[in-house]
């Protein structure tokens, strides 16, 4: 039997518009999924059922949906790093476990409310978003819906687990060195890190101001686009539409044709050492280029000298910025942090101004190189993570952010897209990167790959077999 919660976000919105379902019926179905799975997955830090239902009843009662109400009362999870008025923002930290409720909405939440979203709980995360596993000592470890013995990735692990397990069709994540895309990769969903600055970060607790992004996480590229559009105002959407119309000589055509005809896709072999990747990750990464060529794209072998330094730049600047942000807390109550986060914050204090300035200058050089690359290609592809989800409590791949972190340093948009399953049935993912403000092109390209990769449309195995 298909439940309303099994619908994609786009299908939910269409069902509400067509009056086949109400927002409240969808919310109730999602709450049933929470009853089934939350005890095991621990994807939410807080979820006030009455508050969620009152939002849906209000939207249902309002009747006529305006054009602005893109989401018509469909539910969206919110990473608990983002302020929602009247709700506590814990940032996954002991310091804010009993904090007062936020008095105002983050900018992105205000826009989402205006666009008809029902805010469906605050999702679990790695403490202060400073880590890639969502193993959280203060609120409990979040689990991966494909195998609860494994990490969902992080830091937006709760959002990814909630979406993959169908507790909610889509959710907000934040991404400083990969925190949307890493959990999207581990949980087999789509995650978009937009162009730096495009989605406002006002009201979002910072990790590293220079690299922080807010973005959508969903099960399909169409849903990621729908939520992304609901996160930004009309001016920004128009700007992106104008860019999409004006800068591409050939648009990807409709389904069934060579949909990437006229596009140049970059293959930067030197950035992806085979020995650093799980065999399925690498095989599916290479397969993406076969698909691209088959769809009419021109594959262009490219180089990006110095790109191997980008992650170092990301680490130096994020370590220092995070250390400054948490300086007083670290001085007063160092034991209030989990061991891993405390070590990172202490280390940040040992980055000198000289090192920081050098990192900024290297960054300036890398951004220039990247802009030059984007004059030669329309998009390029990397794996999202070099390995699939790690075991909870087990060793974490030291290179986890090797493909995601560099893109934050550039500020370019990137989308993580499921590309297959390992023999152990854990998801792997490719990452597609485009130039600033090319989100729509990026998602169109991703949609073509989504059609080509054989990734299960059904819920994860554990969710399917979990007793009702």
């Amino acid at each position: 039997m298909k439940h309303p919660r099994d619908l994609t976000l786009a299908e939910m919105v269409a069902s509400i518009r067509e009056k086949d379902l109400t927002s409240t019926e969808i919310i109730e179905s999602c709450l049933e999924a929470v009853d089934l799975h939350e005890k095991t997955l621990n994807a939410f830090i807080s979820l006030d059922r009455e508050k969620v239902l009152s939002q849906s009843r209000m939207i249902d009662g309002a009747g006529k949906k305006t054009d602005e109400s893109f989401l018509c009362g469909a539910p969206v999870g919110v990473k608990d790093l983002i302020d929602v008025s009247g709700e506590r923002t814990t940032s996954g930290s002991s310091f804010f476990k009993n904090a007062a409720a936020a008095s105002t909405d983050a900018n992105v939440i205000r826009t989402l409310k205006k666009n008809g979203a029902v805010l469906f709980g605050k999702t679990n995360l790695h403490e202060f978003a400073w880590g890639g596993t969502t193993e959280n000592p203060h609120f409990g470890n979040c689990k991966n819906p494909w195998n609860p013995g494994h990490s969902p990735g992080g830091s937006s692990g709760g959002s990814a687990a909630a979406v993959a397990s169908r507790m909610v069709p889509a959710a907000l994540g934040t991404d400083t060195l990969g925190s949307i895309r890493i959990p999207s990769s581990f949980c087999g969903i789509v995650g978009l890190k937009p162009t730096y600055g495009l989605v406002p970060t006002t009201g979002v607790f910072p990790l590293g101001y220079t690299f922080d992004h807010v973005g959508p996480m969903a099960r399909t590229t169409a849903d990621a686009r729908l939520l992304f559009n609901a996160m930004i105002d009309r001016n920004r959407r128009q700007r992106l539409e104008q860019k999409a119309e004006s800068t591409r000589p050939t648009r990807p055509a409709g389904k069934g044709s060579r949909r990437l005809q006229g596009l140049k896709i970059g293959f930067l072999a030197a950035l992806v050492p085979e020995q650093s990747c799980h065999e399925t990750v690498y095989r599916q990464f290479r397969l993406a280029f076969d698909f691209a060529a088959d769809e009419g794209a021109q594959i262009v072998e490219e180089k990006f000298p110095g790109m191997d330094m980008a992650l170092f730049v990301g680490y130096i600047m994020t370590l220092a910025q995070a250390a400054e942000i948490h300086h007083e807390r670290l001085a007063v109550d160092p034991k209030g942090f989990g061991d891993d986060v405390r070590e990172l914050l202490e280390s940040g204090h040992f980055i000198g101004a000289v090192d920081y300035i050098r990192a900024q200058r290297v960054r300036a050089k890398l951004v220039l190189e990247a802009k030059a690359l984007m004059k030669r290609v329309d998009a390029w592809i990397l794996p999202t993570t070099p390995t699939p989800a790690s075991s909870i409590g087990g060793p974490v791949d030291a290179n986890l952010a090797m493909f995601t972190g560099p893109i934050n340093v550039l500020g370019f948009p990137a989308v993580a897209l499921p590309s297959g399953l390992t023999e152990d049935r854990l998801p792997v993912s490719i990452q597609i990167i485009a130039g600033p403000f090319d989100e729509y092109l990026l998602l169109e390209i991703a949609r073509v790959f989504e059609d080509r990769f054989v990734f299960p449309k059904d819920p994860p195995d554990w969710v399917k077999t979990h007793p009702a």
Partner: protein
Amino acid sequence: MKRRDFVRMFAEFQNISMDRETAEKLLAPGRMWDQLDFIKAALFQIDVSGFTPADDLDYFQGDRK
């Protein structure tokens, strides 16, 4: 002066407390101190002549609110 003591002294200079155990953990071979040393050295191998520091990217020209 032992590196461990230097690290603790520097931490004190930065107004954060650091016990001996933490300092030793940071300094253990292959751990954070070594990694930072490696990263810093690598960044200083890059020729950045002609480039000034880039902090906030200007893609959105300040319109981020």
